[in-house]
């Protein structure tokens, strides 16, 4: 393996997961990060659903980008490029995809549906999922690269969510001064966690 391709693999895996963590470095997907992190078991369910949806949706949006959006068509002698419709197309595809996945899961894998079912509609228009698709297209990644990047990004999201929910479960048992109780101390904790993740920068 050449040094350059090794660096590329590192960037797509460790970089996506730790250095440019979706929640703590890019500030995407803050809503589920704060919303479903009160208990460890819901955090695990949400993380699994995000890994699932983000990987599939990125694979499909990357296919659309690489085979359709990126290309320039020549119609009546003028060049036409549909890249400006990127956000619109991606969000429509992701939303439809989540719907389809939900129906298929319910039919073919009831246990999985039972575990992820309540979280799937929550991530339909999650900005982390759209963000992964957008980052892939902005960086002009291929289909394989995009899928790997999204999978590891989603793992990073899950890591942050699980760490944070464990912290919050511990916080619930602590004597928190009154002005900081609830969401205030949660946000401060998230900030400190984000600072800790900055320690990874420069890794790759």
């Amino acid at each position, binding site marked *: 393996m050449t040094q350059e391709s090794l660096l590329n693999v590192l960037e797509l895996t460790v970089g996506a997961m730790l250095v440019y963590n979706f929640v703590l470095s890019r500030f995407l997907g803050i809503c589920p990060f704060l919303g479903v992190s009160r208990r460890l078991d819901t955090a695990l369910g949400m993380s699994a659903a995000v890994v699932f949806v983000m990987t599939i949706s990125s694979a499909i949006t990357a296919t659309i980008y690489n085979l359709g959006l990126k290309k320039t068509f020549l119609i009546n002698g003028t060049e*036409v490029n549909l890249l400006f*419709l990127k956000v619109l197309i991606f969000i*429509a595809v992701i939303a439809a995809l989540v719907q*389809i996945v939900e*129906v298929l899961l*319910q039919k073919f894998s009831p246990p999985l549906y039972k575990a992820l079912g309540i979280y799937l509609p929550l991530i339909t228009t999650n900005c982390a999922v759209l963000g992964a698709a957008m980052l892939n297209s902005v960086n002009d990644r291929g289909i394989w690269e995009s899928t790997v990047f999204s999978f590891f990004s989603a793992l990073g999201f899950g890591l942050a969510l699980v760490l944070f929910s464990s912290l919050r479960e511990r916080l619930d*048992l602590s*004597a928190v001064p009154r002005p900081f109780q609830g969401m205030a101390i949660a946000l401060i904790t998230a900030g400190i966690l984000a600072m800790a993740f900055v320690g990874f920068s420069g890794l790759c």
Partner: protein
Amino acid sequence: MTSTIILSVLALSILGIILGLAIGLISKLFGVATDPKVDLVLELLPGANCGGCGKAGCADFARALVSGEASPGQCPVSSQEVMAQIAQVLGMALEAPDKKIAVVLCGGDIQQTKVKTLYNGVNDCISAMLVAGGPKSCAYGCLGMASCARACPFNAIEIINGLAVVHNELCVGCGVCVKTCPRNLIKLVPAEAKVHIYCSSPEKAALKMKVCNVPCIACRKCVKSGEEGQFTINGFRVEVNYDNYPGEDIVSKAGCPKNCLLTAAQHLEIERNEEAGEVVA
């Protein structure tokens, strides 16, 4: 320019049609038929997912209702009208259970009950119980570290003066706090029962009086002034019989010497005054 507009309109329309068709086809082909009643019932349920019915959230309860495994009365939160509506959707008659609320059967706040030791561990009743039974000298009293208040999905429990007090107008009787309290002080009682004996200690009167100013010493004044069967004597304490509870006038009739036979409203007022620093006789 025009060709860009035409192409984008075309591309999006085609994409929309394809996605719409795909969703429609797949839900037609693979869709699992769910009873439309489930959605109707779910809309009527409170949606707090408190678990008071014993199911994992309102959606689970709605499924159990429709399949006949549960009855609407098991939801402790819904009002009578909502239960009637649900019963109507399900096409069944409603058996009306009494609405219940929680009550913390202890009057030993920090002024009334002596503190035996300084506890500065985790501020949680369950944790405090692990450390030599907590800081209060009464081994059966409220620890006042708000485990129940944090567990309550409806914020109906307030810690006043180091004592948990239930706000009756907020309590829906889901029973989450009952399971939380490590000292089993919280009881679900009929909402109509207004009078309680705020003591749960089974110890002898002399021992209770050493550690607390407001214990039930089983003097039986209340038993004598009430009608037969309104109170039960349980060892060294008296309990209200919640199947045949006394009216509010029993408080003045009995004249409890230790001030532990009180209506919920009086109890709340006393704790409020004590918190404000006024001494109540």
